[in-house]
Every structure is written in C-alpha cells, then in structure tokens.
C-alpha cells in the first residue's frame, strides 16, 4: 500500500480502534511455572511476555561481582525466534536485546530493595513470546509481577508504558504498526505512588517542548497499568490463600 497507514483517523480512532489515550487489553497471571522462584505472564494486546525470577541466591560465577551492601540484579531479555512478523535469527545477544536487558537491570535496581540482600544475586529473565510493540514495557510489567511472586520486596510496582506522537496528539501504549509508523517513541517506567521515574528512554528526535505532553501521556498510562497489576496481585493472593487454606 503506497499510502501507508493512517495512524489516527479524523474521527479520533487509531489503527486498532482505540482512542489516543486508551491502553490495549491487559491480561496477566502470576506463578505460571513451578521451578523458578517467581514467574509471571502478561499479555498487553498481542505483545506477550513471560518473566521468571531466580533468587535471591548466592552470586554465580566470579565472586568479584558480589556487592557488599546490596544484591546484584542480573537481567536477560530475549525474544522467541517466532515472536516477530519476520522471523528472528537468534533469540538474544543482538544489540537491541542487550540494550533492553540493560534497561531492565536499571529499572529493577531502582525498584527492588536490594540493600536487604547484600552479597547475593537476583536473576530476572524475560522472554517475549509474541511481539506487537512495547516489548520493553511488557517485560517490565511481567518482571514486576514475577518479582512480587518471588516474594522480593519492591519499593512500589514498576509499571512501564510507551507513548508516541501523531501530529499533535500523544498516543499511549503503541502497537507495532504505530511504533514503526515513524515519529518518536518514548518508553517510561514509573513507580506510581511516589511518581518516581525509574527509566526514561527515547530514541528519535523530539523537541523539548513536546516532552512534557508525551511524558504525561506515558505516566497516565503507567498509572492505569498499576491498578491492573495491583488487581492481578490481589486476585493471585486470594487464590493462593484459599488454596493453602484447603
């Protein structure tokens, strides 16, 4: 199609029928695996992520890595080779996934109360099973649930969401077509209670004057996500307590 895609119609609907500030449908579950210390699965629209947490445990490999006053956060982000429209040749190790791994590490170093676990290590592994935009955000949200499932204390939920611009309208929670449609994409991870930003990332050029609007859109989206995540956690606890009560 020569005309490209119309990201926002005159009637105010996005490609998939959402309004600019609406999030995609979010579904999540905790404790999906038995073996890890914590695990969670999240679907944000067609982006599906699986997070597993191991630890806190003693530092693997060289002892030199250990920190005397807090835990080492170790993250690996990878994508299933079939997760994208065009098949990926390898699940991780490319520049893009190493970058997301780095970002996850920074995000969770800001969120986990690492000082409670000196000289130990916490592993967070995230796998994207299906990718439709917002991989980083889905990874953060899945990992938050997995960390909670592992019983590791967090300052607050970390919620992440992306936002972008079409003409002068900020769009929240971009799908792949919107991310690919050009324009700036901003990813933001928020600790919603204190309004602290754990990570902010933007690759393309954007004028400073627009940054506020875009960040505001992303932060609003993060706040809505945090209520969803909170509900998932509470429901999971309910389920687990009734199970153990039996």
């Amino acid at each position, binding site marked *: 199609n020569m005309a490209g895609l119309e990201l926002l119609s005159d009637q105010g609907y996005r490609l998939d029928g959402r309004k600019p500030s609406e999030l995609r449908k979010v579904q999540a579950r905790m404790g999906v695996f038995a*073996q890890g210390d914590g695990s969670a699965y999240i679907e944000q629209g067609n982006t599906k992520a699986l997070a597993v947490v191991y630890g806190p445990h003693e530092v693997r490999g060289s002892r030199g890595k250990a920190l005397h006053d807090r835990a080492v956060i170790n993250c690996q982000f990878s994508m299933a080779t079939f997760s994208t429209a065009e098949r990926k040749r390898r699940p991780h190790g490319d520049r893009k996934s190493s970058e997301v791994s780095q970002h996850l590490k920074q995000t969770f170093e800001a969120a986990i109360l690492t000082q409670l676990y000196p000289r130990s290590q916490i592993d967070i592994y995230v796998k994207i099973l299906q990718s439709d935009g917002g991989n980083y955000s889905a990874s953060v949200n899945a990992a938050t649930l997995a960390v909670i499932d592992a019983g590791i204390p967090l300052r607050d939920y970390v919620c992440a969401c992306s936002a972008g611009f079409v003409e002068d309208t900020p769009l929240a929670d971009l799908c792949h077509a919107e991310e690919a449609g050009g324009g700036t994409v901003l990813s933001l991870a928020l600790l919603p209670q204190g309004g602290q930003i754990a990570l902010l990332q933007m690759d393309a050029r954007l004028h400073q004057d627009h940054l506020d609007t875009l960040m505001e859109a992303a932060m609003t989206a993060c706040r809505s996500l945090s209520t969803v995540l909170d509900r998932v956690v509470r429901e999971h606890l309910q389920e687990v307590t009734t199970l153990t009560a039996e």
Partner: protein
Amino acid sequence: MATVQISEAEKVYIVHGVRDDLRVDGRGCEDYRHMEIETDVVSNTDGSARVKLGYSDILVGIKAEIGRPRPMVPDEGFLEFFVDCSANATPEFEGRGGEDLGTEISNTLYKVFNNPHSVDLRALCISPKEHCWILYVDVLLLQCDGNLYDAISVAVKAALFNTRIPRVQISEDDEGTKEIELSDDPYDCMRLSVENVPCIVTLCKVGQRHIVDATLQEKACSKACLLLSVTSRGTVTCVRKIGGGSLDPESIFEMTETGKRVGKALQSPLMELLQKEESLGKKRQKVGFLG
C-alpha cells in the same frame, strides 16, 4: 533445571523401584507422566503448540517462508530447526549456556523430521528449482523437567498438525518469468499430513530395566539412553544411542521393541486429541499461559 545431582541412597531407591516396576511417582516402567497439549497458541506463527510433560514446558512455533529448494532435491521443500534453551528454564542457560544442548537437540530433530518419509516435503515445493516453502520450526524450552526429546517431538508434531501454509499460485508469463500470487482468502490454506510424522520415545536404562519418560532424578541414575522415533504404524525411523554409558546389543533390541510399542500407543491418543481440539474451531477457549 537441565540436570540434578542425587545421593547414592536415592539412586538405590530409584533403581530398586524400577526393578519392581514401581517408580518414585507411582508410574510403571512404560508409563508417561501427565501430558498437556494445546495448539495455536502463538497467533503470529503459521502453526504452534505448547506441550507440558511433568514440569517440562515446551513451546513450538512454525513459520513458513518462501525460499529456494536445495540443489540436491530440487522438487522438495525443507524444515529448519532451532532450539532455544532459554534462561527462563534455568539460569544455567543464560548467555550462551544453552547453545550446546540446543544444537544437539536440533540436529536430532533434523534427522527425525526432515525427510520425505516423515513429512511430505514435496508438498512444500512451489516450483521445482525455484521456489519452495521452508518451515522454520522454532522450539522454545521454558522449563526442563526431563525427557525433553519426547515432549519436543510431540510438540513439533502438534505444531505441524496446526500449521496452515497460505496457498500460493505461480503465474507464468510469455517470457517464463514466474510470479508468486497469494490468495486473498485467509482460509485458503494448505495443511500438512502428519500421518507419518513420528514421535520420539526415549528409553533410559536404569539398573537392568529400561523406562520411558524418565524424570530428572531417574535420568541421573541412568547410564545410557536409546532414542527411537516411531510412527503411528509402529515403524521405527531413527535410532540413536545417547548418553555417556554403553549398551549391549541385547538391551538395544529389547528397548527397540518397547519403544515401538510405547511409541505406537502414544500416537493414537495424540491424534485424537489434536482432532478433537480442532473440531472446536473458533469456539475453543484458548488457555495459553493465562490458565
């Protein structure tokens, strides 16, 4: 967890149990653990399946791409395998930790599935020497709890069953230039016959006997294993000894017989299940990882 370490006493307990045909989890020597299968779990693949066997958790996605046939077999398409031993399954696999195991498994899968006896490779040919379908079969290990081969083979078979390849047409003009044309009807798809697709049965020699579907603990007691691929008719299409120890010809013969029997028995409920699931069509409630 790919492997576990167990004590001598545990070993003796397991070996004795096997001798009496009563395994630690209550199974007999030829019994499989509880297995869960679900197909069509990743919507942007052409075919997918998830299989849980014990705590082993396998996700297979198949993507069909158009490529060139191999020069030796110009009228056939082919399969490519990639096994991702993900760190999600165990921290041991982090970085390049899972690569060796992944390569080993994918080589075996290649031997078992990529031949015209197992899959109708000719059906994958679009125009000889020029275009064919390449099926990228990507296996993702999400949890390891022993007997990966069997679980993976079931998942691959289920995913192949689920695979829908878009129907294409070759139009040829006066110059003989061929153009690939796609049907605009998304239902207009080609299915693969999985009738001859084998499943893998891995038999582990524990003490004097052999068992199927060994757990990690049982595997730790086993010196050597025999891997067989068996079709629904009970035909063995591939045999391979794996593991460090050695096996005498007699055991191999016995194990092959058991493998044929167990493999044949595994096939029919599997096909029944797949067909039943498919008959539900769109009404089926997809479970995936949310269940």
